């Protein structure tokens, strides 16, 4: 396939948005209080909406007659290329906030850079995505500072979540051979080019939140090649069940 590199790159972005959006949607009806429940659902909707647009574009790029639903619901675990961070379970509220914060900082700098992609559609989606993630990041930053610099209990929970999730942060910056070609063509973002900005934003917030950045943590990678943690399979089983059991289901 001529556009295989682009197709696979689009899946990386779409899968990450879908999986993290799905994780957030698991909070619906369970968040600590009503306004937070609404905020989580709104952020989840933005991410799933972005995934939808990316899947549509991927389906068009592939041009094999698959639809966005086929790509979301009919692929198996090893075909998913979302980041390891996005698939980690919600845990307690601290875990969810740290996961979302680390991801929002990445998306914020990523979309900023993707705006100048030579691919018109990617650039347009990046402009939109950047506006939205600016709100998401503001929300998670506020929680990081409030809980990190809060009570002893909230601080220790946040620090624990940070320590547990840190091993998935290098994986955010992985790229495969196809991505490297797209970077050369000015279509994809070289993750290395935004890594310093990511570190700086994270450091600034951690300092304000009185949290300590984990050091010397062994890094788990592999998602760019479809190698996942044990959690993704369970997530997909739940997310894909209805569509696979009732392929014609409509509402």
């Amino acid at each position, binding site marked *: 396939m001529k556009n295989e590199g682009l197709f696979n790159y689009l899946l990386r972005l779409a899968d990450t948005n879908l999986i993290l959006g799905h994780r957030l949607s698991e909070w619906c009806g369970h968040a600590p209080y009503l*306004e*937070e429940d*609404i*905020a989580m659902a*709104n*952020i*989840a*909707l*933005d*991410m*799933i*909406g*972005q995934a*939808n*647009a990316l899947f549509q574009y991927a389906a068009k790029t592939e041009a094999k007659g698959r639809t966005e639903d086929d790509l979301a619901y009919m692929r198996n675990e090893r075909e998913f290329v979302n980041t390891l961070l996005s698939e980690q379970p919600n845990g307690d509220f601290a875990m969810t906030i740290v996961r979302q914060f680390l991801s929002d900082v990445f998306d914020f700098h990523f979309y900023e850079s993707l705006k100048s992609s030579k691919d*018109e*559609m990617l*650039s*347009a*989606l990046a*402009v*939109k*995505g950047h*506006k*939205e993630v*600016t*709100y998401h990041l*503001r*929300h998670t930053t506020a929680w990081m500072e409030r809980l990190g610099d809060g009570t002893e209990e909230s601080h220790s929970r946040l620090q624990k979540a940070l320590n547990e999730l840190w091993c998935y942060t290098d994986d955010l910056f992985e790229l495969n051979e196809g991505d490297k070609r797209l970077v050369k063509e000015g279509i994809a973002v070289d993750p290395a080019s935004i890594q310093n900005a990511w570190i700086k934003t994270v450091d600034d917030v951690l300092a304000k939140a009185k949290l300590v950045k984990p050091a010397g943590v062994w890094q788990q990678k592999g998602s760019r090649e479809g190698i996942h943690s044990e959690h993704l399979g369970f997530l997909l089983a739940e997310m894909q069940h209805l569509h696979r059991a009732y392929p014609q289901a409509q509402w």
Partner: protein
Amino acid sequence: MTTAFPILLSEEEIRKLLSTIPDPEIPVITISDLGVLRQIQWNGDELEVSITPTYSGCPAMKMIEQDILALLKEKGIEKAKVVLVYSPAWTTDWISAEAKEKLRVYGIAPPQHTSVDKGALIGKPKHLACPRCKSEHVEMISQFGSTACKALYKCLDCLEPFDYFKCI
């Protein structure tokens, strides 16, 4: 209304027609007021209407698409499709002054122009007033309101909560 022979309306006439469709979630303004309705174009005998999403995950887009197709069908235009466009990205600056006043009367504090206050996207917007008593003595409850495009505020004078249409 059914007509045996479809009357082909001009692009301008169709724009006028579709401009009457209310936004599904804020029915006091139309999809045209909101800036969601973009191009209208005949490609041979097929009509193509482009719309742009306010927010990526806005669930109203599907409904707007259905409303457009239903209204066109009613006017005898069966061969039509609605396409989503992403560029240029939707901005609250496309909401007309009249539409902003309609929002205020409806109880939603309208967005200011993004150029008025660049910090509006992330900080507290300047001169945000309660849509009921116009007091600027207000406080944000949550950045995320009843729909993706709104934040939740409360007025510290009349004590009523209200939605603020976020600048984007």
